[in-house]
């Protein structure tokens, strides 16, 4: 075949490709030439193979199944819509829980949703079944633990909330208390104070919680392949985590993911990043940072309540107190502020409320044990902490009673926070100071300076004390430096030290130009600059 014929064929082929109209004669040549020319025939075959590539190509079945799970889990976030959403935008967090409960969370800057897919990697318990019918069954979800201020969308008092089975759409909200849920098989989720979640989907293949605000710590036992557990938060970001213990926290429009164990893929609209154990990532930040000891301790402390009942046979404990804010200890473990309702394994247990003596009892499977103890009168002698009341003494007594097993710094920090959550600000301040005294130099004690400063400023009206506390923290800057500097600004304002406040604001804005406080601080700065 002549090269000129081949040149003609290639030119016609190109013209057809770019959409030029060809005459009948040209089309005829285009069809006939390849059969008489091996080189052009080979090229024509190549173009045909390209057209068949989509129909004949195959990637991998496992990948297809995995992706399908992700798609189905993700898609159920939003109700069907008439028009296509922006593909990387997720719908705003649904407000059903908010409106139902009238929660004062409307101020939450909910921009969109972030997703945290959590699947267990490498610890599967069954051969891959694909997306079997069993994976489409709804899982049992129930409350296993509640202490302090906890509310459910369905009417239930906190003292009887443990064992409450949750259906899709159920809202659990903590105010001053904490709570834990169990979603079968083997997912335990604990809610920090001022946290709200909606149980969005219980189907095993795409179990999902919507975290509206606050902090949750999830702990997963080995999961069947194909089982998916998703936590959504409120940010235009998608995060995929593979891990056994992880925490998700959202405040205002910030989302932070921490991994205590395992590894996590954090995915937002722009990228996917891997977080390994003991790393923390703020969505929108450029890189991860190591988890602090305080963060790890606090996450594990919160998760601890989810371990109190490990599934299987159960009994129920209900402990209330005549005195609000009474700390409750079960089997030597501080579980929070009364009222407490929890599932436990049947057997012998010891409960202590406030300063009262511990009570040991036997509870059988399926039975409940409840107590409304009256706290004993305050002792008239014995060691008294500086400025401490009965609850702060309780903290110390707990520590002493453990002896060699005295409370860890993390436990003390947690208990101090419980005191504050119970409305006992003065006692909380004492507890924070006690922590600093018992564990000087510890990460918890260091962090407690900021927490103490906040209590002093917000609850005790002690701006001078707060300033001292914030300054104490800033002498050794750490992970809470930004919070400490912001607290210092508020303290200076409360003290009327305008010049110092202005300087502090200017420094803060220059250092944290993207922080959420900048807008309000700049307004304040303008006020301060006015003659």
């Amino acid at each position, binding site marked *: 075949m002549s090269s000129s014929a081949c040149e003609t064929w290639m030119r016609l082929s190109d013209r057809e490709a770019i*959409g030029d109209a060809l005459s009948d004669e040209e089309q005829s040549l285009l069809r006939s030439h390849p059969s008489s020319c091996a080189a052009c025939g080979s090229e024509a075959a190549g173009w045909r193979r*390209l057209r068949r590539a989509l129909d004949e190509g195959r*990637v991998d079945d496992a990948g297809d199944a995995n992706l*399908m799970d992700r798609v189905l889990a993700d898609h159920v976030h939003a109700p069907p819509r*008439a028009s*296509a959403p922006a593909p990387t935008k997720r719908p705003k967090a649904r407000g059903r829980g908010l409106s139902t409960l009238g929660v004062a969370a409307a101020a939450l800057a909910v921009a969109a949703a972030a997703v945290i897919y959590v699947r267990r990697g490498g610890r599967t318990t069954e051969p891959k079944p694909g997306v079997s019918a069993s994976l*489409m069954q709804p899982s049992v979800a129930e409350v296993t633990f509640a202490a302090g201020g906890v509310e459910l969308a369905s009417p239930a008092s906190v003292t009887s909330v443990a064992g409450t089975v949750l259906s899709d759409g159920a809202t659990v909200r903590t105010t001053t208390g904490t709570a834990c849920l169990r979603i079968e098989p083997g997912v335990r989720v604990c809610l920090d104070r001022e946290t709200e979640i909606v149980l969005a989907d219980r189907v095993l293949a795409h179990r999902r919680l919507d975290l509206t605000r606050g902090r949750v710590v999830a702990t997963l036992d080995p999961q069947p392949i194909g089982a998916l557990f998703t936590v959504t938060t409120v940010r235009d970001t998608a995060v995929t985590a593979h891990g056994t213990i992880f925490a998700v926290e959202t405040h205002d429009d910030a989302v932070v993911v921490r991994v205590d164990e395992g590894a996590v893929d954090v995915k937002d609209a722009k990228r996917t990043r891997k977080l390994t154990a003991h790393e923390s990532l703020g969505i929108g930040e450029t890189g991860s940072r190591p988890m602090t000891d305080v963060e790890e301790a606090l996450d594990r402390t919160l998760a601890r309540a989810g371990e109190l009942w490990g599934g299987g046979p159960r009994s129920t404990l209900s402990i209330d107190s005549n005195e609000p804010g009474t700390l409750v200890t079960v089997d030597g473990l501080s579980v929070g502020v009364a009222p407490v309702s929890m599932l436990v394994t049947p057997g012998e247990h010891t409960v202590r409320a406030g300063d009262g003596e511990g009570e040991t009892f036997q509870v059988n499977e399926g039975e409940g044990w409840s107590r409304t103890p009256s706290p004993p009168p305050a002792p008239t002698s014995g060691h008294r902490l500086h400025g401490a009341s009965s609850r702060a003494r309780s903290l110390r007594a707990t520590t002493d009673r453990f002896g060699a097993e005295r409370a860890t710094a993390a436990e003390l920090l947690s208990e101090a926070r419980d005191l504050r959550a119970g409305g006992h600000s003065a006692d909380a301040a004492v507890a924070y100071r006690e922590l600093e005294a018992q564990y000087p130099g510890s990460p918890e004690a260091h962090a407690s300076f900021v927490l103490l400063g906040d209590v002093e400023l917000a609850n005790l009206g002690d701006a001078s004390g707060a300033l001292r506390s914030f300054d104490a923290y800033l002498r050794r800057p750490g992970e809470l430096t930004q919070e400490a500097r912001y607290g210092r600004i508020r303290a200076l304002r409360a003290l009327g030290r305008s010049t110092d406040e202005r300087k502090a604001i200017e420094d803060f804005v220059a250092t944290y130009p993207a922080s959420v406080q900048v807008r309000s601080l700049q307004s304040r700065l303008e006020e301060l600059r006015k003659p």
Partner: protein
Amino acid sequence: MSTKGVKETDVGPDTQHQEDVELMAKVAAGQEDARRSVAARLVGRARRVARAFLRDAADADDAAQVGLIQILHSAGTYAGKSSLERWADRIVVRSALRMARQRRRRHEVTDEDTSVDDLRSDESGPEGDSTLAAHLSQLTEANRMAVVLRHIMEYSIEETAELTGVSPNTVKDRLLRGREQLRKLLRRDAVIEAATLAKPTRASS
């Protein structure tokens, strides 16, 4: 190119797609079985489409995921004017092109200064034909997009221009350059194949 390259909206409703219209209506109504059925039917194709555009397999799966979610979200808008696959392809293609743009921005690489070596990848291209995939990976990104959209996805020049955000003339230019690159590779294959076949083979005992 055939009518496959025409926009869905340009083609009248086709009763042969009525079943799919009903299926997508069920998806829009929130029926779980329908949702799963559509996802299962489209997931493999969506991945292949995305991989034709994105060199990184994880990126491609991400794009496919976003596209599939949007397909499910938009189920109520499917009118049966083309096959479900064809309708879905367009959504996935947009998702993949968007992802490709994001990746390009992140790496601060422009179409024009992307080297051929940068675009080589074992993961790219239609997986069903490793030779074609390898050849496609040697094209510059812009030319490759044009070739993929036109020859694999079978979109018209105008559709390709709309999807890639450039003028039809630019599409034609890229397509011709891409075809020229690919042509050389295809013809080289033919020469190699012919030479291989011409070699004397050792007789088996």
